[in-house]
Protein backbone atom coordinates (compact mmCIF):
# COMPACT_ATOMS: atom_id res chain seq x y z
CA UNK A 1 0.00 0.00 0.00
CA UNK A 2 1.54 3.32 -0.98
CA UNK A 3 1.87 6.12 1.53
CA UNK A 4 -0.92 8.63 2.02
CA UNK A 5 -0.54 12.37 2.20
CA UNK A 6 -2.16 13.85 5.27
CA UNK A 7 -2.72 17.58 5.52
CA UNK A 8 -2.14 19.06 8.92
CA UNK A 9 -2.02 22.45 10.56
CA UNK A 10 0.40 23.71 13.15
CA UNK A 11 -1.43 23.80 16.48
CA UNK A 12 -2.46 27.24 17.70
CA UNK A 13 -2.05 28.47 21.25
CA UNK A 14 -3.84 31.43 22.78
CA UNK A 15 -2.79 33.71 25.63
CA UNK A 16 -3.83 31.26 28.32
CA UNK A 17 -2.15 28.49 26.35
CA UNK A 18 1.04 30.53 26.29
CA UNK A 19 1.04 30.79 30.08
CA UNK A 20 0.46 27.07 30.54
CA UNK A 21 3.09 26.27 27.86
CA UNK A 22 5.61 28.45 29.68
CA UNK A 23 4.81 26.59 32.88
CA UNK A 24 5.11 23.15 31.31
CA UNK A 25 8.44 24.04 29.69
CA UNK A 26 9.74 25.22 33.07
CA UNK A 27 8.42 22.12 34.82
CA UNK A 28 10.08 19.88 32.25
CA UNK A 29 13.34 21.77 32.70
CA UNK A 30 13.12 21.36 36.46
CA UNK A 31 12.32 17.67 36.08
CA UNK A 32 15.55 17.11 34.16
CA UNK A 33 17.42 19.39 36.55
CA UNK A 34 16.56 17.04 39.39
CA UNK A 35 16.67 13.79 37.43
CA UNK A 36 19.24 14.23 34.69
CA UNK A 37 19.48 11.63 31.94
CA UNK A 38 23.03 11.52 30.64
CA UNK A 39 24.80 9.36 28.08
CA UNK A 40 28.21 10.94 28.60
CA UNK A 41 31.18 8.64 28.31
CA UNK A 42 33.97 9.81 30.60
CA UNK A 43 36.42 8.82 27.96
CA UNK A 44 39.93 8.53 29.29
CA UNK A 45 38.51 7.05 32.50
CA UNK A 46 36.03 4.79 30.75
CA UNK A 47 36.00 3.25 27.32
CA UNK A 48 33.34 1.48 25.29
CA UNK A 49 33.74 -2.22 24.77
CA UNK A 50 32.82 -2.32 21.10
CA UNK A 51 30.86 -5.02 19.36
CA UNK A 52 32.70 -7.72 17.51
CA UNK A 53 30.95 -6.42 14.40
CA UNK A 54 32.45 -2.95 14.78
CA UNK A 55 34.46 -1.81 11.80
CA UNK A 56 37.57 -0.76 13.67
CA UNK A 57 41.25 -1.02 12.84
CA UNK A 58 42.16 -3.56 10.19
CA UNK A 59 44.73 -6.27 10.87
CA UNK A 60 46.37 -8.77 8.54
CA UNK A 61 46.73 -12.47 9.23
CA UNK A 62 49.76 -13.14 7.08
CA UNK A 63 49.41 -16.92 7.17
CA UNK A 64 46.08 -16.82 5.41
CA UNK A 65 47.00 -14.21 2.82
CA UNK A 66 47.38 -15.49 -0.72
CA UNK A 67 48.45 -12.17 -2.23
CA UNK A 68 45.47 -11.90 -4.56
CA UNK A 69 45.43 -8.09 -4.51
CA UNK A 70 41.65 -7.89 -4.24
CA UNK A 71 41.90 -5.70 -1.15
CA UNK A 72 44.24 -3.23 -2.81
CA UNK A 73 42.03 -3.13 -5.86
CA UNK A 74 38.78 -2.50 -4.00
CA UNK A 75 40.16 0.09 -1.60
CA UNK A 76 38.27 3.30 -2.39
CA UNK A 77 40.97 5.62 -1.07
CA UNK A 78 44.11 3.80 -2.13
CA UNK A 79 45.07 3.19 1.48
CA UNK A 80 45.91 -0.44 0.89
CA UNK A 81 49.05 -1.10 -1.12
CA UNK A 82 50.71 -4.38 -2.03
CA UNK A 83 54.37 -4.90 -1.26
CA UNK A 84 56.65 -7.57 -2.62
CA UNK A 85 58.96 -9.46 -0.30
CA UNK A 86 61.15 -12.51 -0.65
CA UNK A 87 59.95 -15.54 1.24
CA UNK A 88 61.19 -19.14 1.30
CA UNK A 89 59.53 -21.11 -1.44
CA UNK A 90 57.75 -24.18 0.00
CA UNK A 91 57.96 -26.02 -3.33
CA UNK A 92 61.69 -25.57 -3.88
CA UNK A 93 63.34 -25.83 -0.48
CA UNK A 94 66.33 -23.57 -0.11
CA UNK A 95 65.11 -21.23 -2.85
CA UNK A 96 63.26 -17.97 -2.37
CA UNK A 97 60.24 -16.60 -4.14
CA UNK A 98 58.55 -13.23 -4.38
CA UNK A 99 55.31 -12.96 -2.40
CA UNK A 100 52.86 -10.08 -2.26
CA UNK A 101 51.29 -8.81 0.93
CA UNK A 102 49.07 -5.83 1.61
CA UNK A 103 49.99 -2.96 3.89
CA UNK A 104 47.78 -0.16 5.02
CA UNK A 105 48.17 3.58 5.32
CA UNK A 106 45.95 4.75 8.17
CA UNK A 107 46.20 8.34 6.97
CA UNK A 108 44.00 7.41 4.06
CA UNK A 109 41.89 4.54 5.37
CA UNK A 110 38.19 5.37 5.87
CA UNK A 111 37.34 2.03 7.51
CA UNK A 112 34.70 1.12 4.95
CA UNK A 113 35.74 -2.49 5.39
CA UNK A 114 35.58 -3.39 1.69
CA UNK A 115 39.00 -5.03 1.91
CA UNK A 116 37.89 -7.19 4.82
CA UNK A 117 34.73 -8.23 3.02
CA UNK A 118 36.39 -8.93 -0.29
CA UNK A 119 39.28 -10.99 1.08
CA UNK A 120 38.64 -14.52 -0.18
CA UNK A 121 40.50 -16.18 2.69
CA UNK A 122 39.52 -13.98 5.65
CA UNK A 123 43.12 -12.88 6.01
CA UNK A 124 42.06 -9.36 6.93
CA UNK A 125 39.86 -8.66 9.90
CA UNK A 126 38.53 -5.77 11.95
CA UNK A 127 39.61 -5.28 15.56
CA UNK A 128 36.98 -3.62 17.75
CA UNK A 129 39.31 -0.76 18.62
CA UNK A 130 38.88 2.78 17.36
CA UNK A 131 40.97 5.03 19.57
CA UNK A 132 44.56 4.31 18.65
CA UNK A 133 46.68 7.43 18.56
CA UNK A 134 49.78 8.00 16.45
CA UNK A 135 52.35 10.55 17.41
CA UNK A 136 53.48 11.32 13.89
CA UNK A 137 52.14 10.80 10.43
CA UNK A 138 54.86 8.40 9.40
CA UNK A 139 53.72 5.94 12.07
CA UNK A 140 50.35 5.72 10.40
CA UNK A 141 51.84 4.03 7.36
CA UNK A 142 52.00 0.45 8.49
CA UNK A 143 54.60 -2.01 7.35
CA UNK A 144 54.05 -5.73 7.15
CA UNK A 145 55.08 -6.31 10.76
CA UNK A 146 52.96 -3.61 12.36
CA UNK A 147 50.02 -4.46 10.10
CA UNK A 148 49.87 -7.90 11.72
CA UNK A 149 49.83 -6.55 15.26
CA UNK A 150 46.43 -6.08 16.83
CA UNK A 151 46.25 -2.52 18.16
CA UNK A 152 45.19 -2.01 21.76
CA UNK A 153 42.98 0.82 22.91
CA UNK A 154 45.23 3.20 24.88
CA UNK A 155 42.44 3.87 27.37
CA UNK A 156 42.05 0.13 28.01
CA UNK A 157 45.80 -0.27 28.34
CA UNK A 158 45.87 2.40 31.03
CA UNK A 159 43.23 0.63 33.05
CA UNK A 160 40.12 2.58 32.13
CA UNK A 161 36.77 1.15 33.16
CA UNK A 162 35.16 -0.88 30.37
CA UNK A 163 31.55 0.12 29.73
CA UNK A 164 28.92 -0.48 27.13
CA UNK A 165 25.62 1.09 26.27
CA UNK A 166 22.39 -0.88 26.36
CA UNK A 167 19.09 0.33 24.98
CA UNK A 168 16.37 1.27 27.39
CA UNK A 169 12.80 2.33 26.55
CA UNK A 170 12.73 4.92 29.34
CA UNK A 171 16.21 6.41 29.28
CA UNK A 172 17.34 5.75 25.73
CA UNK A 173 20.81 4.46 26.41
CA UNK A 174 22.11 3.25 29.72
CA UNK A 175 25.80 2.96 30.44
CA UNK A 176 26.62 -0.38 32.02
CA UNK A 177 29.92 -1.53 33.39
CA UNK A 178 31.29 -4.57 31.61
CA UNK A 179 32.57 -7.35 33.86
CA UNK A 180 35.93 -8.91 33.09
CA UNK A 181 34.43 -12.21 32.00
CA UNK A 182 31.95 -11.01 29.39
CA UNK A 183 34.37 -8.84 27.46
CA UNK A 184 34.92 -11.16 24.57
Amino acid at each position, binding site marked *: *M*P*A*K*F*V*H*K*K*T*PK*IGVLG*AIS*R*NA*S*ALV*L*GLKYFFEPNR*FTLMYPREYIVL*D*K*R*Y*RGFIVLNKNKCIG*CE*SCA*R*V*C*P*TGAMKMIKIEVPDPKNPGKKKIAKYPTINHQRC*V*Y*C*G*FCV*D*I*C*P*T*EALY*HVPVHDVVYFNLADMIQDLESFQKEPVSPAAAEGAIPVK*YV*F*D*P*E*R*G*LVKVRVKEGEKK
Partner: protein
Amino acid sequence: MQAGEVPKINMSSWEVGESRYLPGMEIKRLGKERFVVYIGPQHPGSGHMRIIIKVDGDVIVEADPDLGYVHRTMEKLSEGRAFIKIIPLVERMAILDACNVTLPYVEAVEKLLGLEPPERAKYLRVALCEINRIASHLYGFGIFGVFLGHSTMYMWGFGDREVLVELAEKLTGARLTHTYPIFGGVRRDAPQNFTDNLRKAIRYLRKRLDEYRKIFLDNPVIRRRLEGVGIVPKKVAVDLGLVGPNLRASGVEYDVRAIEPYEAYDELDFEIPVFEEGDSLARAWVRVEEIKQSLRILEQIADKLDKTKGQQIMHDRFWAKAPPLYKKVFEAEGRVKLMPLFAILRVPKGRSFARTEAARGEITYYVESDGKDKPYRVRIVSPSFRNAIMFKYVIPGHRIADLPAIYGSFDYFPPEADR
Protein backbone atom coordinates in the same frame (compact mmCIF):
# COMPACT_ATOMS: atom_id res chain seq x y z
CA MET B 1 9.77 43.78 -0.93
CA GLN B 2 7.23 41.48 0.65
CA ALA B 3 8.40 38.24 2.19
CA GLY B 4 8.17 35.36 -0.21
CA GLU B 5 7.75 37.54 -3.30
CA VAL B 6 10.01 36.50 -6.14
CA PRO B 7 11.83 39.52 -7.50
CA LYS B 8 12.61 39.83 -11.19
CA ILE B 9 16.27 39.41 -12.00
CA ASN B 10 17.56 42.21 -14.13
CA MET B 11 19.26 40.42 -16.98
CA SER B 12 20.28 43.57 -18.80
CA SER B 13 23.22 44.32 -16.55
CA TRP B 14 24.68 40.93 -17.39
CA GLU B 15 24.96 41.67 -21.07
CA VAL B 16 28.37 42.30 -22.49
CA GLY B 17 29.00 45.91 -23.33
CA GLU B 18 26.43 47.24 -21.00
CA SER B 19 28.31 46.44 -17.83
CA ARG B 20 32.01 46.57 -17.22
CA TYR B 21 31.82 43.82 -14.67
CA LEU B 22 31.52 40.08 -14.86
CA PRO B 23 28.23 38.55 -13.72
CA GLY B 24 28.14 38.33 -9.96
CA MET B 25 30.92 40.85 -9.59
CA GLU B 26 29.03 44.03 -10.36
CA ILE B 27 29.67 46.98 -8.14
CA LYS B 28 26.42 48.66 -7.22
CA ARG B 29 25.84 51.84 -5.33
CA LEU B 30 24.13 51.18 -2.03
CA GLY B 31 21.21 53.23 -0.86
CA LYS B 32 22.07 55.96 1.58
CA GLU B 33 21.03 54.14 4.74
CA ARG B 34 21.97 50.66 3.58
CA PHE B 35 24.53 48.50 5.22
CA VAL B 36 26.18 45.34 3.89
CA VAL B 37 26.73 42.56 6.43
CA TYR B 38 28.62 39.40 5.57
CA ILE B 39 27.12 36.49 7.45
CA GLY B 40 29.69 33.75 7.16
CA PRO B 41 31.66 31.75 6.32
CA GLN B 42 33.28 32.28 9.73
CA HIS B 43 30.18 33.30 11.57
CA PRO B 44 28.63 31.29 14.39
CA GLY B 45 25.30 31.24 12.58
CA SER B 46 26.13 30.40 9.01
CA GLY B 47 27.70 27.00 8.45
CA HIS B 48 30.09 26.51 5.54
CA MET B 49 28.57 29.23 3.44
CA ARG B 50 28.16 32.93 3.24
CA ILE B 51 25.04 35.00 3.00
CA ILE B 52 25.71 38.56 1.96
CA ILE B 53 22.87 40.66 3.23
CA LYS B 54 22.04 44.30 2.73
CA VAL B 55 20.13 45.82 5.57
CA ASP B 56 18.08 48.93 5.91
CA GLY B 57 18.07 49.51 9.65
CA ASP B 58 17.26 46.09 11.03
CA VAL B 59 15.40 44.88 7.95
CA ILE B 60 17.14 42.84 5.28
CA VAL B 61 16.47 44.19 1.80
CA GLU B 62 18.64 41.84 -0.19
CA ALA B 63 20.19 38.46 0.52
CA ASP B 64 22.72 36.74 -1.63
CA PRO B 65 23.67 33.16 -0.71
CA ASP B 66 27.24 32.39 -1.65
CA LEU B 67 27.82 28.65 -1.84
CA GLY B 68 30.71 26.43 -2.73
CA TYR B 69 33.02 26.63 0.28
CA VAL B 70 33.07 22.86 0.68
CA HIS B 71 32.94 21.78 -2.94
CA ARG B 72 34.83 18.51 -3.36
CA THR B 73 34.31 17.72 -7.06
CA MET B 74 32.50 14.49 -6.25
CA GLU B 75 31.02 14.16 -9.73
CA LYS B 76 34.39 14.51 -11.43
CA LEU B 77 36.12 12.21 -8.95
CA SER B 78 33.47 9.59 -9.65
CA GLU B 79 34.51 9.41 -13.30
CA GLY B 80 37.90 8.10 -12.28
CA ARG B 81 37.00 5.31 -9.92
CA ALA B 82 35.46 1.88 -10.04
CA PHE B 83 31.73 1.68 -9.44
CA ILE B 84 31.95 0.29 -5.94
CA LYS B 85 34.48 2.88 -4.81
CA ILE B 86 32.01 5.67 -5.47
CA ILE B 87 29.75 4.57 -2.62
CA PRO B 88 32.12 5.63 0.18
CA LEU B 89 32.84 8.80 -1.76
CA VAL B 90 29.31 10.08 -2.23
CA GLU B 91 28.24 9.28 1.29
CA ARG B 92 30.63 12.01 2.45
CA MET B 93 28.07 14.40 1.03
CA ALA B 94 25.92 14.06 4.13
CA ILE B 95 27.50 11.65 6.55
CA LEU B 96 24.60 11.78 8.96
CA ASP B 97 22.27 10.78 6.16
CA ALA B 98 24.69 8.29 4.61
CA CYS B 99 22.27 5.56 3.61
CA ASN B 100 19.75 7.89 2.01
CA VAL B 101 22.30 9.67 -0.14
CA THR B 102 24.06 6.54 -1.38
CA LEU B 103 20.96 4.45 -1.98
CA PRO B 104 19.92 6.09 -5.29
CA TYR B 105 23.42 5.60 -6.66
CA VAL B 106 23.29 1.93 -5.74
CA GLU B 107 19.81 1.65 -7.24
CA ALA B 108 20.90 3.35 -10.45
CA VAL B 109 23.78 0.93 -10.89
CA GLU B 110 21.52 -1.98 -9.99
CA LYS B 111 19.19 -0.89 -12.76
CA LEU B 112 22.07 -1.02 -15.21
CA LEU B 113 23.10 -4.43 -13.91
CA GLY B 114 19.50 -5.61 -13.96
CA LEU B 115 19.47 -6.67 -10.33
CA GLU B 116 16.72 -6.63 -7.78
CA PRO B 117 17.89 -7.00 -4.18
CA PRO B 118 16.30 -9.77 -2.09
CA GLU B 119 13.36 -8.94 0.15
CA ARG B 120 15.23 -8.86 3.44
CA ALA B 121 17.89 -6.62 1.98
CA LYS B 122 15.17 -4.16 1.05
CA TYR B 123 13.85 -4.12 4.59
CA LEU B 124 17.31 -3.60 5.98
CA ARG B 125 17.91 -0.73 3.57
CA VAL B 126 14.63 0.90 4.58
CA ALA B 127 15.49 0.40 8.25
CA LEU B 128 18.80 2.21 7.89
CA CYS B 129 17.24 4.89 5.70
CA GLU B 130 14.65 5.69 8.34
CA ILE B 131 17.20 5.58 11.16
CA ASN B 132 19.26 8.05 9.16
CA ARG B 133 16.24 10.19 8.47
CA ILE B 134 15.39 10.52 12.16
CA ALA B 135 19.02 11.13 13.08
CA SER B 136 19.30 13.78 10.41
CA HIS B 137 16.12 15.53 11.52
CA LEU B 138 17.32 15.49 15.13
CA TYR B 139 20.60 17.00 13.99
CA GLY B 140 18.66 19.64 12.11
CA PHE B 141 16.61 20.37 15.20
CA GLY B 142 19.74 20.71 17.27
CA ILE B 143 21.24 23.26 14.91
CA PHE B 144 17.89 25.02 14.63
CA GLY B 145 17.65 25.19 18.42
CA VAL B 146 21.07 26.72 18.90
CA PHE B 147 20.41 29.25 16.16
CA LEU B 148 17.49 30.45 18.22
CA GLY B 149 19.59 30.46 21.38
CA HIS B 150 17.86 27.37 22.72
CA SER B 151 20.85 25.37 23.88
CA THR B 152 18.74 22.62 25.45
CA MET B 153 17.20 21.66 22.11
CA TYR B 154 20.69 21.59 20.66
CA MET B 155 21.99 19.19 23.28
CA TRP B 156 18.85 17.07 23.30
CA GLY B 157 18.85 16.74 19.54
CA PHE B 158 22.46 15.67 19.51
CA GLY B 159 22.11 13.53 22.61
CA ASP B 160 19.15 11.55 21.37
CA ARG B 161 20.76 11.19 17.98
CA GLU B 162 23.22 9.01 19.87
CA VAL B 163 20.49 6.38 20.28
CA LEU B 164 20.05 6.19 16.51
CA VAL B 165 23.74 6.31 15.79
CA GLU B 166 24.17 3.42 18.22
CA LEU B 167 21.43 1.49 16.41
CA ALA B 168 23.12 2.12 13.08
CA GLU B 169 26.42 1.03 14.54
CA LYS B 170 24.90 -2.22 15.74
CA LEU B 171 23.46 -2.82 12.28
CA THR B 172 26.34 -1.77 10.05
CA GLY B 173 29.45 -1.65 12.20
CA ALA B 174 30.05 2.06 11.70
CA ARG B 175 28.52 5.02 13.46
CA LEU B 176 28.23 7.37 10.53
CA THR B 177 29.70 6.40 7.19
CA HIS B 178 27.93 3.10 7.00
CA THR B 179 28.63 2.22 3.33
CA TYR B 180 25.76 -0.17 3.85
CA PRO B 181 23.77 -0.70 0.64
CA ILE B 182 25.81 -2.30 -2.08
CA PHE B 183 24.96 -3.57 -5.56
CA GLY B 184 22.63 -6.51 -5.12
CA GLY B 185 21.90 -6.17 -1.43
CA VAL B 186 23.37 -4.95 1.82
CA ARG B 187 26.63 -5.72 3.57
CA ARG B 188 25.53 -6.92 6.98
CA ASP B 189 22.58 -8.77 8.37
CA ALA B 190 20.83 -7.43 11.44
CA PRO B 191 22.35 -8.81 14.66
CA GLN B 192 20.42 -11.10 17.01
CA ASN B 193 18.76 -8.54 19.30
CA PHE B 194 18.51 -5.75 16.74
CA THR B 195 14.71 -5.70 16.51
CA ASP B 196 14.36 -5.68 20.31
CA ASN B 197 16.74 -2.74 20.54
CA LEU B 198 14.90 -1.03 17.72
CA ARG B 199 11.57 -1.35 19.54
CA LYS B 200 13.10 -0.01 22.74
CA ALA B 201 14.57 2.95 20.88
CA ILE B 202 11.21 3.64 19.23
CA ARG B 203 9.46 3.77 22.59
CA TYR B 204 12.10 6.07 23.97
CA LEU B 205 11.95 8.44 21.00
CA ARG B 206 8.14 8.63 21.12
CA LYS B 207 8.41 9.80 24.70
CA ARG B 208 11.12 12.28 23.83
CA LEU B 209 9.18 13.79 20.93
CA ASP B 210 6.51 14.78 23.40
CA GLU B 211 9.17 16.49 25.50
CA TYR B 212 10.65 18.27 22.49
CA ARG B 213 7.25 19.66 21.85
CA LYS B 214 6.98 20.93 25.40
CA ILE B 215 10.37 22.56 25.61
CA PHE B 216 10.87 23.72 22.06
CA LEU B 217 7.98 23.76 19.63
CA ASP B 218 5.30 24.82 22.09
CA ASN B 219 7.64 27.08 24.02
CA PRO B 220 6.01 30.51 23.59
CA VAL B 221 9.35 32.22 22.99
CA ILE B 222 10.26 29.84 20.19
CA ARG B 223 6.77 29.95 18.72
CA ARG B 224 6.92 33.70 18.44
CA ARG B 225 10.25 33.43 16.68
CA LEU B 226 8.92 30.98 14.14
CA GLU B 227 5.27 31.73 13.53
CA GLY B 228 4.73 33.66 10.34
CA VAL B 229 8.46 33.94 9.68
CA GLY B 230 9.93 32.95 6.33
CA ILE B 231 6.66 32.12 4.66
CA VAL B 232 7.07 30.25 1.39
CA PRO B 233 3.75 30.27 -0.46
CA LYS B 234 2.81 27.11 -2.31
CA LYS B 235 3.33 28.64 -5.73
CA VAL B 236 6.76 30.05 -4.91
CA ALA B 237 7.85 26.73 -3.44
CA VAL B 238 6.88 24.98 -6.66
CA ASP B 239 8.33 27.65 -8.94
CA LEU B 240 11.70 27.60 -7.23
CA GLY B 241 11.75 23.81 -7.08
CA LEU B 242 12.05 23.22 -3.37
CA VAL B 243 12.17 19.61 -2.24
CA GLY B 244 11.61 17.54 0.84
CA PRO B 245 10.12 18.69 4.13
CA ASN B 246 10.50 22.34 3.08
CA LEU B 247 8.21 21.72 0.13
CA ARG B 248 5.73 19.72 2.16
CA ALA B 249 5.59 22.48 4.76
CA SER B 250 4.23 24.72 2.00
CA GLY B 251 1.32 22.41 1.31
CA VAL B 252 2.65 20.54 -1.72
CA GLU B 253 2.08 16.79 -1.84
CA TYR B 254 5.40 15.52 -3.05
CA ASP B 255 7.45 12.73 -1.63
CA VAL B 256 9.40 10.19 -3.63
CA ARG B 257 8.45 7.49 -1.12
CA ALA B 258 4.82 7.99 -2.13
CA ILE B 259 4.84 8.92 -5.78
CA GLU B 260 7.56 6.52 -6.90
CA PRO B 261 8.00 3.99 -4.09
CA TYR B 262 11.42 2.41 -4.02
CA GLU B 263 12.74 -0.52 -1.98
CA ALA B 264 10.05 -1.71 0.41
CA TYR B 265 8.15 1.54 0.82
CA ASP B 266 5.11 0.34 -1.14
CA GLU B 267 4.57 -2.48 1.38
CA LEU B 268 4.56 -0.20 4.37
CA ASP B 269 1.67 1.65 5.90
CA PHE B 270 2.58 5.22 6.72
CA GLU B 271 1.48 8.78 6.17
CA ILE B 272 3.30 11.74 4.75
CA PRO B 273 2.51 14.90 6.66
CA VAL B 274 1.86 18.04 4.67
CA PHE B 275 1.51 21.41 6.36
CA GLU B 276 -0.24 24.37 4.84
CA GLU B 277 1.34 27.42 6.43
CA GLY B 278 4.77 27.36 4.84
CA ASP B 279 6.43 29.28 7.67
CA SER B 280 9.38 28.28 9.82
CA LEU B 281 7.07 26.75 12.41
CA ALA B 282 5.43 24.53 9.79
CA ARG B 283 8.84 23.43 8.57
CA ALA B 284 9.74 22.45 12.13
CA TRP B 285 6.44 20.65 12.64
CA VAL B 286 6.63 18.74 9.38
CA ARG B 287 9.90 17.26 10.58
CA VAL B 288 8.44 16.25 13.91
CA GLU B 289 5.54 14.53 12.18
CA GLU B 290 7.97 12.86 9.80
CA ILE B 291 9.95 11.48 12.71
CA LYS B 292 6.71 10.05 14.10
CA GLN B 293 5.97 8.38 10.76
CA SER B 294 9.53 7.11 10.52
CA LEU B 295 9.10 5.49 13.91
CA ARG B 296 5.92 3.89 12.59
CA ILE B 297 7.83 2.58 9.56
CA LEU B 298 10.59 1.24 11.79
CA GLU B 299 8.03 -0.60 13.90
CA GLN B 300 6.69 -2.37 10.82
CA ILE B 301 10.21 -3.04 9.59
CA ALA B 302 11.04 -4.64 12.94
CA ASP B 303 8.15 -7.09 12.44
CA LYS B 304 9.19 -7.79 8.85
CA LEU B 305 12.77 -8.38 9.90
CA ASP B 306 11.59 -10.87 12.50
CA LYS B 307 9.55 -12.65 9.84
CA THR B 308 12.34 -12.86 7.27
CA LYS B 309 15.00 -13.95 9.70
CA GLY B 310 17.86 -15.93 8.18
CA GLN B 311 16.99 -15.09 4.60
CA GLN B 312 19.55 -14.14 2.08
CA ILE B 313 20.49 -10.46 1.79
CA MET B 314 22.60 -10.55 -1.37
CA HIS B 315 21.42 -11.07 -4.91
CA ASP B 316 22.00 -14.53 -6.33
CA ARG B 317 24.36 -13.29 -9.00
CA PHE B 318 26.89 -12.45 -6.31
CA TRP B 319 25.87 -15.08 -3.81
CA ALA B 320 24.87 -18.31 -5.56
CA LYS B 321 28.42 -19.17 -6.56
CA ALA B 322 29.94 -17.97 -3.31
CA PRO B 323 32.48 -20.38 -1.83
CA PRO B 324 31.57 -22.24 1.38
CA LEU B 325 33.78 -19.95 3.47
CA TYR B 326 31.58 -17.01 2.45
CA LYS B 327 28.41 -18.77 3.58
CA LYS B 328 30.06 -19.80 6.81
CA VAL B 329 31.05 -16.22 7.59
CA PHE B 330 27.55 -15.05 6.77
CA GLU B 331 25.99 -17.60 9.09
CA ALA B 332 28.42 -16.91 11.92
CA GLU B 333 28.72 -13.12 11.77
CA GLY B 334 25.94 -11.98 9.43
CA ARG B 335 28.61 -10.41 7.26
CA VAL B 336 28.23 -10.58 3.50
CA LYS B 337 31.57 -11.24 1.91
CA LEU B 338 31.97 -9.58 -1.45
CA MET B 339 32.95 -11.57 -4.49
CA PRO B 340 36.35 -10.39 -5.82
CA LEU B 341 34.66 -9.33 -9.04
CA PHE B 342 33.20 -6.33 -7.19
CA ALA B 343 36.53 -4.59 -7.47
CA ILE B 344 36.51 -4.75 -11.25
CA LEU B 345 32.78 -4.81 -11.81
CA ARG B 346 31.93 -3.96 -15.39
CA VAL B 347 28.56 -2.35 -15.71
CA PRO B 348 26.72 -2.77 -19.03
CA LYS B 349 26.50 0.21 -21.30
CA GLY B 350 23.54 2.43 -20.62
CA ARG B 351 22.08 5.30 -18.71
CA SER B 352 20.06 5.11 -15.59
CA PHE B 353 18.42 7.42 -13.20
CA ALA B 354 17.27 6.86 -9.64
CA ARG B 355 15.98 9.02 -6.86
CA THR B 356 15.10 8.63 -3.23
CA GLU B 357 13.67 10.80 -0.54
CA ALA B 358 16.62 11.73 1.65
CA ALA B 359 16.06 13.47 4.96
CA ARG B 360 16.35 16.88 3.36
CA GLY B 361 14.43 16.02 0.23
CA GLU B 362 14.65 14.31 -3.09
CA ILE B 363 18.14 13.27 -4.15
CA THR B 364 18.69 12.29 -7.76
CA TYR B 365 21.49 10.37 -9.43
CA TYR B 366 22.11 9.98 -13.10
CA VAL B 367 24.65 7.29 -13.90
CA GLU B 368 25.95 6.70 -17.38
CA SER B 369 28.16 3.72 -18.12
CA ASP B 370 30.06 3.05 -21.30
CA GLY B 371 30.60 -0.60 -20.45
CA LYS B 372 33.85 -0.12 -18.57
CA ASP B 373 34.58 -0.61 -14.89
CA LYS B 374 34.28 3.12 -14.29
CA PRO B 375 31.21 5.24 -14.92
CA TYR B 376 31.26 7.66 -17.79
CA ARG B 377 29.31 10.23 -15.82
CA VAL B 378 27.69 10.49 -12.43
CA ARG B 379 25.43 13.45 -11.92
CA ILE B 380 24.12 14.23 -8.47
CA VAL B 381 21.37 16.67 -7.63
CA SER B 382 21.23 16.98 -3.89
CA PRO B 383 18.28 18.32 -1.93
CA SER B 384 20.16 21.06 -0.11
CA PHE B 385 21.39 22.43 -3.40
CA ARG B 386 17.84 22.77 -4.60
CA ASN B 387 16.74 24.39 -1.37
CA ALA B 388 19.61 26.90 -1.30
CA ILE B 389 18.00 29.16 -3.90
CA MET B 390 15.27 29.90 -1.41
CA PHE B 391 17.52 32.05 0.77
CA LYS B 392 17.60 34.67 -1.94
CA TYR B 393 13.85 35.00 -2.04
CA VAL B 394 12.67 34.29 1.47
CA ILE B 395 15.11 36.26 3.59
CA PRO B 396 14.49 39.78 2.18
CA GLY B 397 11.85 41.60 4.16
CA HIS B 398 12.79 39.97 7.43
CA ARG B 399 14.87 41.23 10.30
CA ILE B 400 18.48 40.23 10.89
CA ALA B 401 17.34 38.20 13.88
CA ASP B 402 15.08 36.19 11.58
CA LEU B 403 18.01 35.03 9.49
CA PRO B 404 18.93 32.14 11.82
CA ALA B 405 15.25 31.30 12.25
CA ILE B 406 14.87 30.91 8.50
CA TYR B 407 18.28 29.40 7.82
CA GLY B 408 17.79 26.82 10.56
CA SER B 409 14.27 25.95 9.49
CA PHE B 410 15.44 24.98 5.99
CA ASP B 411 17.85 22.49 7.55
CA TYR B 412 20.35 23.53 4.93
CA PHE B 413 23.48 21.40 4.88
CA PRO B 414 26.35 23.00 2.93
CA PRO B 415 28.46 19.85 2.34
CA GLU B 416 25.45 18.23 0.75
CA ALA B 417 24.74 21.20 -1.49
CA ASP B 418 28.33 21.74 -2.56
CA ARG B 419 29.05 18.04 -3.18
